[in-house]
């Protein structure tokens, strides 16, 4: 076997004594994690002092429905993304199907499409007046909606479908990376021992890929939980809608924060349960003998099925929506370019780019801090700091605004007192504040990608490097970073692509006269002017395509890098 199950705890040799407490890495990790955790703590702080208790009212009225709907949505999207994500990842990794090389990267493309955009596009074609029902009516001679039954797109099922279509790439991406890193040998052994291809998949490949798949799935879950745009548009009453209802309609931001915190606990419970189930199992590559998984030829019905299984998510998650967007944008390109389209695009690129760089830096620091020390405390703080992804963006924005404004006002107060001048708001309402907000919101993406990649590097490498006298930072710079740079790229690109789509935080926290592509889409879509909303939406998608292709390359090459490094080290 070239994969071993290492039960030794990470960095045990260096965790003895007081050294670990005063160690630079630990302190740096802790400080950064604490900074990122401040907005989340602020939201919890808000929850402690609600304007009025909402629970009795909620529990006796809509709470059961909110919870039922939320669970339904999460389970639905979870199962959907799991089947599509893992299934397509396995097919493109192990089957020879036509267009496999294209599918490898193209299956990631739906990631570039915001869920709120795909929701309004599909509503347009699937509702009563849309072309699909129109054609059916024409064909069957129906006239009114009472003549026939057609599934309602604005429903829980519709929301599950929309989110599954744009979120499955998270699972696909991480599952594929994991499958690629599995070596031929393991499956060979499995097959030699008499397991068929299906059983080998379920008994060997899937369990080995489980940590990666779970990270992908938890990203999906968090994004599903924090979504507002889609569920609002479809009028599907989830807990997130409840958050905004209590906040905006009952003027009770504390009560809203309470629901958000309840949702957080929910996510923490899910992640905790999975980690407990997996406990201390860790999987590392311990040999340099890496051979690609063998690709089988699939023919006949099986082959056609495999091909379709890859084509359909791509078609419905990307090709069709983009076609509709282009169609909708026709005739509106002129006015789009004439407006502040270019400035918006520039702002989007700058914000997402900065957020990607910072989130990457923070992610590497935290993930490596965990690898080095991995004490319960530091682990807890890091996990906590990554929870921003599960909080609805608008609520998290309030969590960012309050401490930043407090800091600004405190500096101002001191300056007024000591020097008689007002410094005003230094950070609030600036691009810095927004980038900080993005990092808080998207850190889970960066930490997740880097941690799972670092986790697969055998600890023997650290041991060897340490024996040779290298310091922690030295090992990181010279050994780990080169090995995981594929995953670093993945982390940065994920944050970038999500940053391009980010809406609620940007809207609330932005400086004066500041638009991004997403806010442009929003202001027109909110007025149901989809024509004008299409060009900026298309620009978000177009900007996302290149990073997504890079992402795919990064994944393909990450295996190459770790394989080669193993050789170097071995």
């Amino acid at each position: 076997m070239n994969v071993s199950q290492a039960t030794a705890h990470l960095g045990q040799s260096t965790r003895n004594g007081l050294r670990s407490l005063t160690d630079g890495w630990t302190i740096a990790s802790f400080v950064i994690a604490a900074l990122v955790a401040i907005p989340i703590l602020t939201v919890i702080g808000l929850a402690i002092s609600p304007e009025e208790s909402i629970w009795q009212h909620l529990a006796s009225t809509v709470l059961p429905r909110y919870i039922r709907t939320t669970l339904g949505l999460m389970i639905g999207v979870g199962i959907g993304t799991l089947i599509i994500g893992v299934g397509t990842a396995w097919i493109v990794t192990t089957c020879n199907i036509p267009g496999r090389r294209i599918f490898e990267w193209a299956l990631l493309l739906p990631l570039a499409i915001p869920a709120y955009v795909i929701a309004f596009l599909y509503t347009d074609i699937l509702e009563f007046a849309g072309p699909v029902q129109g054609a059916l009516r024409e064909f069957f001679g129906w006239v009114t909606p009472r003549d026939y039954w057609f599934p309602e797109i604005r429903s829980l099922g519709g929301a599950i479908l929309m989110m599954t279509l744009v979120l499955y790439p998270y699972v696909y991406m991480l599952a594929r990376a994991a499958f690629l890193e599995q070596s031929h040998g393991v499956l060979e052994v499995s097959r030699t021992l008499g397991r068929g291809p299906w059983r080998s998949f379920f008994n060997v490949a899937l369990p080995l890929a489980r940590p990666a798949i779970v990270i992908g799935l938890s990203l999906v879950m968090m994004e599903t939980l924090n979504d507002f745009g889609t569920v609002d548009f479809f009028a599907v009453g989830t807990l997130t809608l409840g958050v905004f209802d209590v906040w905006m309609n009952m003027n009770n931001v504390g009560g809203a924060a309470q629901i958000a915190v309840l949702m957080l606990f929910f996510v923490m419970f899910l992640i905790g349960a999975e980690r407990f189930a997996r406990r201390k199992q860790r999987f590392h590559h311990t040999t340099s003998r890496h051979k690609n998984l063998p690709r089988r030829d699939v023919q006949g019905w099986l082959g056609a099925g495999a091909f379709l299984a890859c084509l359909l998510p791509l078609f419905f998650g990307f090709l069709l929506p983009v076609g509709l967007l282009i169609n909708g944008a026709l005739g509106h390109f002129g006015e789009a370019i004439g407006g502040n389209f270019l400035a918006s695009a520039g702002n989007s690129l700058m914000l997402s780019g900065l957020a990607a760089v910072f989130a990457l830096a923070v992610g590497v620091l935290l993930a490596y801090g965990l690898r080095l020390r991995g004490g319960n405390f530091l682990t807890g703080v890091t996990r906590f700091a990554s929870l921003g992804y599960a909080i609805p963006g608008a609520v998290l924005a309030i969590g960012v605004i309050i401490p930043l404004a407090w800091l600004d006002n405190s500096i101002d107060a001191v300056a007024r007192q000591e020097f008689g001048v007002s410094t005003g708001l230094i950070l609030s309402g600036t691009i810095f504040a927004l980038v900080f907000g993005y990092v808080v919101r998207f850190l889970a993406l960066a930490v997740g990608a880097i941690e799972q990649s670092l986790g697969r590097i055998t600890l023997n490498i650290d041991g060897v490097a340490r024996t040779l006298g290298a310091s922690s930072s030295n090992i990181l710079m010279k050994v780990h970073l080169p090995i995981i740079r594929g995953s670093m790229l993945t982390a940065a690109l994920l944050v970038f692509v999500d940053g391009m789509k980010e809406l609620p935080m940007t809207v609330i926290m932005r400086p004066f006269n500041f638009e991004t592509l997403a806010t442009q889409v929003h202001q027109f879509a909110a007025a149901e002017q989809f024509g004008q909303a299409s060009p900026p939406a298309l620009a978000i998608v177009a900007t996302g395509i290149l990073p997504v292709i890079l992402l795919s390359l990064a994944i393909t090459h990450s295996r190459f890098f770790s394989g080669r490094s193993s050789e170097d080290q071995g």
Partner: protein
Amino acid sequence: MTRVTKVKKNGLIAAVAIGAVVSSAVLASSAVQAAEEVNLYSYRQPFLIKPFLDVFTKQSGIKVNVVYAKKGMLQRLKAEGRNTPADAVLTVDISRLNALANAELLQPIKSSVLEKNVPAQYRHPDGLWFGLTTRARVVYAHKTRVKPGEVASYDDLAKPHMKGRICTRSGKHSYNLSLLASIVAAKGEQAATEWARAVKANLARRPQGNDRAQVKAIKEGICDVSLGNTYYMGAMATNEKKPVQKTWAAAVNVLFPGQSDRGTHVNISGAAITEHAKNKANAIKLLEFLSENFAQKMYADQNFEYPVKAGVAWHPLVASWGKFKADKINLNKIAKYRSTAAKIMDRVDFDG
């Protein structure tokens, strides 16, 4: 080895670039303080208000800077405290103005121009906020399927003859909440709850979409009547970019409920000046400008809203729906009962 130094070098470049961007952003934001200008937090979409603001800048030489957001403005203003850059707030719905006033984020304004142009019922008694336009919450009714007299009041929507014939957007949308709050104010919480429950039982489909989508549903035969704000009718009937919306508008009549009792529910869009406004004089100028003939006419012509200033002509299309009796209820009561209305909607599970 070379790879590592490259990583370091790239990191350094990135850090320098970030530093440059951040510091320029900080500089840019402090530069906002310098020239003649006014800073606006707006709940109204930029493309709606930009034409007004451009004219204001041209006439007065005062530049208008805008942040547009629907959620979180109150919390942002509150957190920014005395250092907030915002001078004025532009919003729709009385409840938002009222929430800002209750949070003590607004300052009272004395302006003879505003007091002359804005009728007393559409402004705060102490001048904390001023209404700029009104919009009525009306019933859109199919031209032939709804017989004259079938829907003469909001109460009629709750009667058995409307079973399966009503469409509406979410009961939790602020427009519906304000309507329900006006019913709470007029008839009490119990009666309002019964009304909401009965309307819910009469719905043709689960509440969804916006006000326009309901008119579309009437056109398609899903339902016969819907609740909607008046200006949407204007926007649909004159929509050259999406001419299909003209056919939706053509399918319905505008009915003003309650003409024989308390009148049709109206709400306002309005503006206010923040407690810590740095450019207070400019902000007052902006509000006064928005209350004068030119801007009032623009609101009427472009957005199909009712100007608050007496004597300003309505858009011909709006005028064609006729004059109507508006519910004279004190707007503050609508804001006061909004939370009650939201809870009633939960109790009858209106959106479920």
